[in-house]
């Protein structure tokens, strides 16, 4: 399910079936153009991953609003991320997956109350090209399998 009117209404009626949430973690930094470009690309990539996984398991996964943050201050973000997660686990959700391409979470993964899913990063590329698309498909089926193992 996505965060739109139609799906959220369906979610509200079928809560008992939807127990898994994906939160995409999306950093941005406006200090350097190069970094900004890379992050913008990776944001598209991350959204694509999340939406493909959601499509596969629409009936059991809810795709949360994206969590945006300014990169470089991950320690300070931990509380806010956990606050989000707390809201969702209260609904309840049994499985919270944080999708990210940002390696800076590595050291903090124990402090986060959700399961971090590291997605393989591409630095740049064309999301429409068939190589990138088949790469994404391959990855999506692995992520889907990983999620299934939690159920």
């Amino acid at each position: 399910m996505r965060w739109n009117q139609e799906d959220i209404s369906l979610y509200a009626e079928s809560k008992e079936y939807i127990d898994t949430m994906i939160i995409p973690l999306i950093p941005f930094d406006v200090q350097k153009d190069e970094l900004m470009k890379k992050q913008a690309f990776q944001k598209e990539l991350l959204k694509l991953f999340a939406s493909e996984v959601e499509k596969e398991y629409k009936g059991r996964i809810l795709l949360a609003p994206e969590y945006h943050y300014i990169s470089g201050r991950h320690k300070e973000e931990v509380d806010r991320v956990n606050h989000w997660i707390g809201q969702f686990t209260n609904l309840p959700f049994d499985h919270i997956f944080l999708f990210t391409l940002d390696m800076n979470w590595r050291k903090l993964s124990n402090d986060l109350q959700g399961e971090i899913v590291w997605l393989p990063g591409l630095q740049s590329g064309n999301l429409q090209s068939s190589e990138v698309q088949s790469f994404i498909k391959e990855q999506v089926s692995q992520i889907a399998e990983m999620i299934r193992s939690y159920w």
Partner: protein
Amino acid sequence: MSDKKQVSRRQFLNYSLTGVGGFMAAGMLAPMVRFAIDPVLQPSAAGKFKAVVEESELTSEPQRFTWKINQKDGWYESEVEKSAWVYKKENGEIVALSPICTHLGCTVDWASNEEYPNQFYCPCHGGRYKKNGVNIPNTPPTAPLPLYEHKVEEGMLYLGQAKSRGSGV
């Protein structure tokens, strides 16, 4: 007696050849006429179906095929990927099923659960369907998997719209 027979056979051939020629001419003309008088109907009717796979690749075991369509969805027009489980029945009839679970919309897999080797299985809440797409009672789905409209032309399978089959079992 035998002479007469010869003649009549030749006559018969003549007639029938003219007949075939006539048909061929008519066959060539008909689409031209249709184009001339009704250019609007042609593309819309043809655009609904998409080439998916060569018929010769189909087996009695369901296989998953994907294709792309342009979809206009409110504000956006985008290319979306469609997919279907397709197999051939013993009598040669083609069955093309939508893989979208009728419960809450997950994607079902063929024979992915060892306990149910001849069924479609939904990993989300254990929904199950028979090979023909009919939902199995006492699993969450309450309707069969939708069937795609299909046609075969020059050995190529074309799929159209997926049609829901009501509330089933």
